[in-house]
C-alpha cells in the first residue's frame, strides 16, 4: 500500500538519508531530499553530483545513505545515472537481475545542473532514460564558497558577483531552467519547494511514476549563502513562492498547470529583505534594482499564468 502523505504515516518510515550528516543546520538540500525520499515507497538508487549534498553526506569512511548511492563527478550525475539505468534495463532484460520497480534519481545542485551539467542532463533526458533528475537550487556554488551560477538571482551578492562600489551584485536575471527542461518535451517537469511539502511529495511521486525521464527543480535555501537564520529556511522559501519568484507548477505530458497560486502576491522586496545577500540593494543608489527585479518576476509570472491557462 502506498504511504499516505500525512505527517503521522510519514513519520513511521525509516529515513533514507540518515541523521549525522554534515550539511549545515537548516540546509534546504537535506530537507528537500528527506521529503522526496519519504514520498517514495519503492527501492531507489541515487546519483549525486559534486556539491554540498554530496560532500557533506559521504565523508569516508562514513556514509549517510541507507540506499544505493553513487557520486562520479560534478557535471555528470545525469550521464552517470543513464549508465546505471541502462545497466539495470540490460540486466533485467537478460534475466541477470530481478526486476524490482527501482526508482532512479539523480541529484545535482544548480551549478551542477544549470551550468556545467546541462549538456549531460539534456542528453540523458533526450535519450529517454527512466529516471528523475532533481536540481536542488540554492542559487550559487555553495560548496566552493558561494560563487554565482546562472541560477543566482539578479542583484545577489556572491563571492564572484560581489556587491562592489561600481557593480552591485549579479547583473543578470537567472536562467529559467525549468522551462528549458519543459522544452525537452519529456513526460514530467515540475518546479517545487520544501515549504509546500505535500506538493513536493506529490510531484515526486508523479515524477518517478511517469514512465520516462522527469525533471524537478526544487528551491533549497542555503542559509550560508542567502544569509538568513538557520531556523528561517522554510519561511524564507515560502516567501520566494508567494512573491512568485519561485512559482510552483508542473508540466505533465506537455500540459502546464500551476499547483499553487498565492492568494495574495507578495512583493519581491519582502523576500529580498530577509536575506543578507540582497542587503546592498536597499541602499539608495541600488534600489532601482529591486524595481527591475520586480518587473522581471512579474513578466515571467504573467507568462507562466498564460501558459497554465490562467492568464
Amino acid at each position, binding site marked *: 500500500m502506498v504511504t499516505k502523505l500525512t505527517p503521522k504515516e510519514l513519520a513511521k518510515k525509516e529515513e533514507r538519508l540518515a541523521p549525522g550528516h554534515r550539511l549545515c543546520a537548516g540546509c534546504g538540500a537535506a530537507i528537500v531530499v528527506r521529503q522526496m525520499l519519504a514520498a517514495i515507497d519503492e527501492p531507489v538508487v541515487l546519483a549525486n553530483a559534486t556539491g554540498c549534498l*554530496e560532500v557533506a553526506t*559521504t*565523508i*569516508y569512511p562514513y556514509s549517510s545513505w541507507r540506499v544505493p548511492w553513487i557520486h562520479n*563527478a560534478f557535471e555528470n550525475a545525469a*550521464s552517470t545515472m543513464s549508465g546505471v539505468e541502462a*545497466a539495470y534495463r540490460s540486466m533485467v532484460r537478460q534475466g541477470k537481475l530481478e526486476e524490482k520497480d*527501482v526508482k532512479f534519481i539523480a541529484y545535482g545542485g544548480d551549478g551542477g545542473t544549470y551550468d556545467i551539467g546541462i549538456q549531460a542532463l539534456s*542528453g540523458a533526458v533526450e535519450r529517454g532514460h527512466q529516471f528523475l533528475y532533481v536540481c536542488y537550487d540554492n542559487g550559487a556554488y555553495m560548496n566552493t564558497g558561494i560563487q554565482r551560477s546562472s541560477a543566482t538571482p539578479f542583484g545577489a551578492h556572491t563571492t564572484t558577483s560581489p556587491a562592489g562600489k561600481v557593480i552591485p551584485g549579479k547583473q543578470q536575471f537567472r536562467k529559467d531552467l525549468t522551462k528549458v527542461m519543459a522544452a525537452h518535451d519529456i513526460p514530467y517537469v515540475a518546479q517545487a519547494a520544501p515549504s509546500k511539502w505535500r506538493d513536493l511529495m506529490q510531484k515526486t511521486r508523479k515524477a518517478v511514476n511517469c514512465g520516462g525521464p522527469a525533471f524537478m527543480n526544487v528551491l533549497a535555501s542555503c542559509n550560508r549563502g542567502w544569509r538568513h537564520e538557520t531556523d528561517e529556511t522554510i519561511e524564507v522559501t515560502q516567501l520566494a513562492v508567494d512573491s512568485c519568484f519561485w512559482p510552483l507548477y508542473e508540466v505533465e505530458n506537455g500540459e502546464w498547470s500551476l499547483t499553487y497560486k498565492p492568494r495574495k502576491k507578495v512583493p519581491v522586496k519582502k523576500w529580498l529583505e530577509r536575506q543578507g545577500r540582497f542587503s546592498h540593494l536597499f541602499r539608495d543608489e541600488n534600489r532601482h534594482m529591486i524595481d527591475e527585479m520586480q518587473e522581471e518576476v512579474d513578466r515571467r509570472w504573467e507568462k507562466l499564468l498564460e501558459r497554465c491557462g490562467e492568464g
Partner: protein
Amino acid sequence: MSKFEALTGNAAVSNAMRQINPDVVAAYPITPQTDTVQTFSEFVADGLVDTEFVTVESEHSAMSACVGASAAGARVMTATSANGLALMWEIIYIAASNRCPIVMSLVNRALSAPINIHCDHSDVMGMRDSGWIILMSENGQEAYDNIIQAIRIGEHPDVLLPVAVCQDGFITSHSLERVELFEDGEVQDFVGTHEPQWPLLDVEDPKTYGPLDFYDYYYEHKRQQVEAMEKAHGVIREVTQEFNDRFGREYGLFEAYRMDDAEVAVIAANSTAGTAKTAVDNLRDQGLKAGLLKLRVFRPFPGQELAEALRGVSAVAVMDRAISFGSMDNAGPLFSEVVSALTLNDVHVPIADYVYGLGGRDIRPGEIENVYQEAFQMAENGKVERRVRYLGVRE
C-alpha cells in the same frame, strides 16, 4: 571452428564486442574509431547482442555512463580516439580509481591542435598515469585478441581496473586484413560471466560509491591502486597464457622478434612494429644482427622483463610516436620509460630515441633500417651521437 575473414581493425574489434556481448556500451563517434560503434550499433539493431547501447551526447558522458553502469554491476565497453579521450579525461581517472573494469578500444590518433585525424600516440601517452591497464596491438588481429583478454584481465578480482586496448588509427583500424574470428561460444567461454562483487544495483545491501576521501584515507586508496597494478602484472601473464593455450597464440608482455643473437634492438609499439619486422628481415638478409622488441603491455610497464630481454645487446633505439614536450631533450614518453627500466636494472647500453610518424606521417621500412644502421654505429662507437632525433621532419 574459428573462421578467417577480411576485416578492418575496427571491424575486428566490433566483432570481439559482439562475441563478448557486454551488458552496456556507451560511446560517441570520433574518427578513426567511429566504424567500431557503427558496426556495433548494427549488431544491436539486428538483435545479435543483448547490449544496452547508450548513445551519449559526448565522450565525457560516455565515460560517465560507463562508470555508472560498471558500478551498477554491468560488463561495460566503450571506444574512442584522441579528442574523445581528452574529453573523457576527468572520468578516465575516476573509472580507474573507482575500480571499474571497463574495456575501451582506443584507436590512436593525434591530439589537436592542429586538428588531425591520423595516427600517433599522443592520446594514449597522456593517460599513462591514470591507472588504466594499456595494451598495444600491431594489427586488427591483435586488437581482437587483446580485447577478449582485456575483459578477463580487468575483471579479475585481484585487479578490477579498466583496460584500454590500442591500435593505430587508419593504419590498422581501416586496413582490411585477414582476421581469425573464434567461435562465438569459445569467446564467451573464455571471457565467462561478469561477477560484480559490490553491485550498486543491490538494493537490499546499499553501497556508497565515490565518497569524499581526505588526507586520512585517500593516500591508502591510491596505494591499493598500486597493489592492483602490481597484481595486474601477474594476472596479465596468466590470462595471456590461458589465451595462448586455447587459441594457439604466442603472446607475452612483449614480443622479442629475432632477438636471440641480436646486436642491436629497436623498441616499437602498434603497427610500426610490423613495419620494423620487415626492416629486421631485410637487415638479417644482409647478415646484420638486428632484433625488435614489440611492446604489448604498456601499463603496467614490464620494465624488468624488458631490461632482461635487452641485456646483452650493444645498442638500443626507441621508436616514439609522441613527444613529451619539455622532458629532457624533448624525447618521447616511451624513451623515458625504457631508459629508466634499463638503468634501474643495471643494463647500461647506448640508447637513442626516434620520434616519428606524428599526425599520421608515414614510416617506411627504409627509415627504420636507417635507425638500425645508426644503432649499429652507436654499438660500434659505444656512445650516442644524438640522443633524440625526429625522423622525417622538415626542419
